[in-house]
């Protein structure tokens, strides 16, 4: 018992019918193309963003806390936060080091943008970070060549620096930077280490960093800068306990009234991840909305053209029925045709979407990846659109009375 006419036969018939009306078929696919392009384009950009985001956020370390005056998330009361007491090395830095039991390393950091020079080479807007030897642990920075600052270097405020991979590359080209003197914001430093390549974080290049002793930083560039204390937790499982402990210590040394809220913030990677998730979810919602509307409009276009096609080919349907096509054969034929139009649009949409994403990626710091999953979902979606909007015209064709169809002029 044969269920349907040959599948390939159906596809052949469909493509013959489509190529007979090339312009019409092309215009009909446009709605689908736009819908799929939007979805695939935004999806692949988000995918690319995710990839670079999660690799770079993992550089922050999920077990590192960042104590500062500002919360990374709070948008409220910026003015209030600005007027808070400064976080200082002497008070908070020392207190945490002394009393916190659940931490592995504590590194106060201050930073500024400075120009770095070596002989005639110049690099602007380099992030200069003043910190201690513990920064290596809290920020996961490892010198690839040379060494990190030591406690003695920091305590004695020695004019030494560890430079980022790109700083070394741009200033020294092929020369070995170790032991050479460079100017950071006009002051002389000797290079003792070069960090391994770290890439960029949300468009911020992590390889253009220079690390110097914190005491020297404050002496040279001023001490009234916002200090962030980086704290590495001893056991990631106890992160909440560690936060409680730190909150207690900080409230005590900052003499916060028990009835008042914290006047400092303990930030962590999760907060950025949460914020990021919220942003991308919103983006997805927009893409999905625009894409769905375009797909529905495209689907209605397909339905419209299929209805026209059924009317135009009434006689053909009559002939096919007279020589033995069953209702389901006709249904199948027109359904395949609708599917062919929508898939054609879908394939074009996937290609255009991907190319657009690549163009966006090359023009900005974003990267784009197309996951096979998104392509499969896209194709599934297109098929659904094709079936959903194709079934009614196909059903109409299948139900035609062969006698009337044969006489149709």
């Amino acid at each position, binding site marked *: 018992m*044969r269920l349907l*006419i*040959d599948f*390939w*036969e159906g596809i052949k018939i469909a493509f*013959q*019918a489509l190529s*007979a009306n090339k312009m019409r078929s092309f215009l009909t696919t446009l709605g689908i193309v736009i819908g799929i392009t939007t979805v695939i384009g935004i999806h692949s950009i988000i995918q690319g963003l995710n990839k670079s985001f999660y690799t770079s956020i993992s550089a922050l370390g999920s077990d590192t806390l960042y104590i500062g005056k500002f919360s990374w998330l709070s948008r409220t009361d910026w003015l209030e936060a600005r007027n808070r007491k400064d976080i200082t090395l002497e008070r908070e830095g020392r207190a945490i080091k002394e009393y916190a039991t659940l931490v592995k390393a504590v590194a106060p950091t201050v930073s500024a943008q400075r120009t770095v020079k070596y002989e005639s080479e110049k690099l602007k807007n380099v992030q200069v970070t003043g910190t201690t030897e513990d920064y290596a642990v809290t920020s996961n920075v490892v010198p690839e060549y040379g060494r990190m600052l030591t406690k003695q270097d920091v305590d004695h405020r020695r004019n030494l620096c560890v430079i980022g991979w790109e700083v070394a590359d741009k200033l020294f080209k092929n020369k070995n930077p170790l032991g050479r003197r460079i100017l950071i914001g006009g002051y002389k430093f000797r290079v003792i280490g070069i960090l391994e390549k770290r890439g960029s974080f949300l468009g911020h290049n992590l390889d253009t960093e220079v690390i110097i002793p914190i005491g020297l930083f404050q002496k040279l560039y001023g001490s009234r800068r916002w200090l962030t204390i980086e704290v590495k937790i001893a056991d990631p499982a106890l992160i909440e306990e560690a936060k409680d402990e730190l909150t207690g210590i900080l409230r005590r040394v900052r003499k916060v009234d028990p009835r008042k809220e914290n006047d400092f913030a303990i930030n962590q990677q999760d907060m950025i991840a949460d914020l990021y998730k919220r942003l991308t979810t919103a983006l997805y919602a927009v893409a999905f909305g625009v894409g769905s509307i375009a797909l529905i409009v495209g689907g209605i276009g397909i339905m419209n053209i299929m209805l026209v096609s059924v009317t135009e080919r009434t*006689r*053909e349907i*009559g*002939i*096919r*029925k*007279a*020589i*033995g*096509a*069953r*209702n*389901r*054969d006709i249904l199948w034929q027109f359904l395949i045709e609708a599917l062919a139009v929508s898939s054609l649009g879908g394939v074009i949409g996937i290609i255009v979407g991907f190319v657009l994403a690549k163009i966006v990626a090359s023009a900005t710091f974003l990267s784009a990846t197309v996951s096979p999953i998104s392509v499969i979902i896209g194709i599934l979606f297109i098929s659904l659109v094709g079936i959903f909007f194709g079934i009614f015209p196909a059903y109409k064709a299948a139900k035609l009375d*062969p*006698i009337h169809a*044969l006489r149709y002029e």
Partner: protein
Amino acid sequence: MLIELDDIVKIYQVGTEKVGALQGVSVKIVENEYLAIMGPSGSGKSTLMNILGCLDTPTSGKYRFDNDLVSEMNDDQLAEIRNREIGFVFQTFNLLPRATALHNVELPLIYNGTPASKRKKIAQQALEMVGLADRMHHKPNELSGGQRQRVAIARALVNKPKIILADEPTGNLDTRTGEEIMEIFEEIHEQGNTIILVTHEEYIAEHTNRIVRLRDGKIERDESV
């Protein structure tokens, strides 16, 4: 008995009025008969042909085709009968305009699931039989009227049906070409096929062995020639 029509009635609803296109037609047709159905327009001959061709079902009465009760069949079963047992030849040829002669002839084979490899061969043979071996890859608009009708006859024959049903097959052709087509029908008949011809031209009907004349939905005369 190949075909047995027993008191066939067909009533159409036209607006609020009921029109009796056939009002009790009984005909028996045996194998290898060559018969013409004649009658003025409105006599019900088209309706009778549609019912004989399983394109339509009677309002009442029994239609047996090769001992199967066609009048009780559903759409799918009717389609199957049309595909396997009946070959249609129409006045306006009714070929698919975008398909080649060969593909047109292949169509009935597609709908009974003949594999593609066999299809082509069978269709080619059918076209050779009607003398169109050299026109296989032409589209209908590249063929003359007579050639088109021959493609249609090849299509009707391709599934080796029990009857050929021809509705005014020479109506759109000049006399000479019409005669050529009638010669083909004669050949087919000599090979043992059953042919039912619907026509209003006496000289065409004269080719057959039996003429059934209809008037006002009833058989007026049924005579052997």
